[in-house]
């Protein structure tokens, strides 16, 4: 009965729904949601087999349809006013109407475009060449063109990365013994107390690594009351 629907010929899920609406002469404001949902699901059941770039959008619409269907099954909760109840289909109907407006107008545009293709300006070839990216007219260059040119340049040229390797100034081992020495004097110490204001970034990093090392070796215990709070370091007594 139903013939095969070629999904690729629809520009999106709304386009597909409009096809059903037209085919079955449905009133857009009173869509038989159960029927259209099963039609829709039937149409997209082969979606996995087709490589469609907007497959996700088709699936999203399927779930929206099923949600509307489920809502329709629930008893309507009309707040006092009997006239005004929320039809769960109203959003979809509005979307379809809005989309249909532009779909119709795009047909008009298509005619205008194909008609216009029959007029050739005298410098036609020149214009075509200008569109070519190799013939950039600097005055007319747009931000987009500039950005895409930049992108192609980056993609063409492999990025050379130079590593500046400096000799490690602060060693983790040294730091470990430093922390342990601190903990020898005091059983508990705050993380921030391990450095002074002049401490360099690498110093902080190495200290952090040293602490991680000590935690792993079960030499210390680290606690924090809440996020971003001071970190308290405690020595674990070796049994």
């Amino acid at each position, binding site marked *: 009965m139903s013939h095969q629907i070629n999904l690729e010929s629809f*520009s*999106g*899920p*709304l*386009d597909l729904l409009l096809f059903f*609406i*037209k085919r079955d*002469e449905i*009133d*857009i*404001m009173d869509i038989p949601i159960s029927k259209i949902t099963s039609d829709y699901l039937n149409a997209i059941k082969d979606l996995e087999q087709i490589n469609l*770039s*907007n497959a*996700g*959008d088709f699936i999203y*619409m399927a779930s929206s349809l099923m949600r509307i269907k489920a809502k329709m099954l629930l008893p309507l909760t009309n707040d006092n006013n009997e006239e005004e109840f929320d039809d769960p289909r109203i959003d979809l109907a509005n*979307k379809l*109407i*809005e*989309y*249909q*407006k*532009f*779909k*119709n*107008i*795009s*047909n*008009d*545009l*298509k005619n*205008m*475009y*194909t*008609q*216009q*293709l*029959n*007029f*050739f*300006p*005298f*410098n*036609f*070839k*020149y*214009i*075509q060449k200008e*569109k070519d990216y190799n013939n950039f007219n600097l005055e007319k260059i*747009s*931000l*987009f063109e500039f950005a*895409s040119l930049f992108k192609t340049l980056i993609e063409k040229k492999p990025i050379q990365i130079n590593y500046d390797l400096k000799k490690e100034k602060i060693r983790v081992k040294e730091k470990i013994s430093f922390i342990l020495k601190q903990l020898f004097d005091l059983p508990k110490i705050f993380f921030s107390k391990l450095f002074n204001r002049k401490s360099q970034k690498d110093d902080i990093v190495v200290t952090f690594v040293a602490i991680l090392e000590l935690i792993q070796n079960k030499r210390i215990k680290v606690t924090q009351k809440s996020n971003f709070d001071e970190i308290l370091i405690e020595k674990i007594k070796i049994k």
Partner: protein
Amino acid sequence: MDDLRIIEALLFSCEDILTQKKVDLCFDNLKPPELDKIVKILNREYEKSNRSFLIQKISSGYRIVTHPIYSKWIKKMFRESSSLSQPALETLAIIAYKGPVTRSDIESIRGVGCVGVLKTLLEKKLIKINGRSKDMGKPLIYGITNEFLIAFGVDSISDLPKLKEVNEIINQTSTI
């Protein structure tokens, strides 16, 4: 010198669209002729003498184009295929009528992702980035270009067919 022939020469040699402004410049602002008037005379002349070209009013100016009845042959010479896909046309329609718009504006009307389509349209120069919206995330805003007006053969955006009103469409579909 005849203004008629001067304008004709300007139209032939003009790089893109000949506007009144350009004409004024060429005449050093000394009594420049009215472009609109001259074009009308020239077009009448071409029609009478059955020429292969005509002057087209486009994107707030004029240009000389070949008569569409010869497109059959010209197309073969250039072997052009510059058709626009349905998604591209829908996206263009939304940008032209609702623009400037963001990508999510377009996507919410079309119900599908539009990244690829927008890229193609940008490359074809039919749309351009007009800046960023002040909304959350500062999304890019897209608008149509002069190239759009030329590609669709209109003088300005107001020459596009009017967007049919919502009610009209509701009636249309419910009376089928």
